[in-house]
């Protein structure tokens, strides 16, 4: 049964230095507030996992929390590049960042394998590309029936997965809807999980398109209204496209970025 705890306590208990941490949310429901709390608690040496590292990972990388990034597409959607990510890769600032990169199909299937308790997943993918040359987690497997050679990807098993959802009830049952991405798989693949929610309600009224994660499959739930900003929570907020556009200028310069981080993450948390 998931416990309901404040965000700071949940991050303190569930996210440890050196962990493999997945923050998921496919454009929608990105757990920004939890990411900021990880920065505030100055976690180090994390392996950050995410299909689409976007602004929240740019912030975590720029803050120096990450040693390694496992991903399939790193950019500011609809805007352009992630400058902190590029600065880390191209100039090792603020520290070197190891990369392990995949395709979306590969990452999604790695989570599926993790959620399924299997060591690998099979797909048609990567063939003929240069991607498999740079990771040990893509190999081939022969079909035992047809002999056809297919691609195998190793299961992802994060130490902790963090996602944001619209609602939870007091038993920790979690409800999300709209674009639900790979969150169910990412939570079920992880050893521990933290879900931040817009609100805790007495009862989860069914909603079309919902995904429900039973409380007994989640470690902790923290109520964090607006915890997905500047991404959005369908039914609660809209995407703050201006923030994404403004991030381009903020993140281009190291000092501007540091000032932003200090003001909007470190001091914002201290005041809360």
């Amino acid at each position: 049964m998931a416990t309901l705890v404040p965000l700071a306590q949940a991050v303190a208990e569930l996210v440890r230095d050196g962990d493999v941490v997945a923050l998921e949310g496919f454009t929608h429901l990105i757990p920004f507030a939890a990411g900021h709390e990880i920065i505030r608690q100055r976690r180090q040496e994390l392996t950050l996992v995410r299909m689409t590292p976007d602004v929240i990972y740019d912030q975590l990388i720029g803050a120096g929390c990450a040693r390694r990034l496992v991903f399939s597409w790193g950019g500011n959607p609809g805007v352009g590049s992630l400058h902190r990510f590029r600065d880390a890769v191209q100039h090792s600032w603020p520290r070197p960042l190891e990369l392990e990169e995949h395709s979306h199909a590969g990452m999604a299937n790695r989570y599926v394998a993790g959620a399924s308790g299997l060591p690998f997943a099979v797909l048609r993918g990567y063939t003929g590309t240069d991607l498999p040359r740079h990771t040990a987690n893509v190999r081939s497997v022969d079909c035992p029936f047809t002999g056809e050679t297919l691609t195998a990807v190793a299961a992802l098993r994060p130490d902790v997965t963090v996602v944001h959802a619209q609602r939870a009830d007091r038993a920790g049952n979690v409800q999300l809807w709209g674009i639900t991405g790979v969150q169910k798989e990412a939570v079920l693949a992880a050893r521990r999980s933290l879900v931040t929610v817009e609100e805790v309600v007495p009862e989860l009224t069914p909603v079309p398109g919902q995904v429900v994660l039973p409380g007994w499959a989640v470690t902790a739930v923290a109520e964090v209204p607006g915890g997905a900003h500047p991404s959005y929570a369908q039914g609660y907020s809209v995407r703050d496209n201006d923030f994404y556009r403004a991030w381009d200028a903020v993140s281009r310069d190291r000092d501007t970025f540091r000032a932003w981080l200090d003001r909007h993450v470190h001091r914002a948390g201290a005041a809360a």
Partner: protein
Amino acid sequence: MMTVAAARQLRDGIACFVGIGLPSTAANLARATHAPNLVLVYESGCLGAKPDRLPLSIGDGVLADTADAVVSVPEVFNYWLQPGRIDVGFLGAAQLDRYGNLNTTVVGDDYATPAVRLPGAGGAPEIAASCREVVVIVRQNPRTFTARVDFVTSVGYGTGPGDRERLGLRGGGPRLVITDLGVLEPDPVSCELTLTRLHPGVSREQARAATGWDLAVAEPLTTNEPPTADELAVLRALRATAEGSRP
């Protein structure tokens, strides 16, 4: 003109795998003009999205709100893209070679210390592998149209004829490359991208000069019809909905 040329390629009723930016604009232009039953599939899991404004990101709420079905990300790749259910996939690239192989990963010789770190693969490798056909939309210049891509993110025709079959890629590969100068198509025998059409006002010399290899040119080389007043009006109206997003 790139957007209009791309939109014209989309026959009504087909299913189209759409990324954000030009492909999304082109697909929505087609839907608003000659192809009202075009099925737009976004990798965020939205099947049959019918946005009334241009989404800024592939996870825009308007896509989920208007979709026939919203499925998980694993499902969109495993059940919908991988088995070959999608007719056309749209791709962009930072580099492209004469066989339509695409690079969206790194520019530079050394993967570990790249000159430019690009966003990476996303859905592209499997879109390139599995869609019945691929349409590439990319601006044409010698830096982008390069003899050898620094990294093969998505396979076009590999090193030439027969390569897709050898690799077990079941989709047809790039059928068209639409640029700001014209249209390239693979030669049916050699698979090499060949200039087949120019946009109005562009010369073959311009197109060849903008290509980092010795670009083959089809005979006869035709010229695309300029955008119609209707196409331009719809396109302007669409872009006005995009909240100041880049065209």
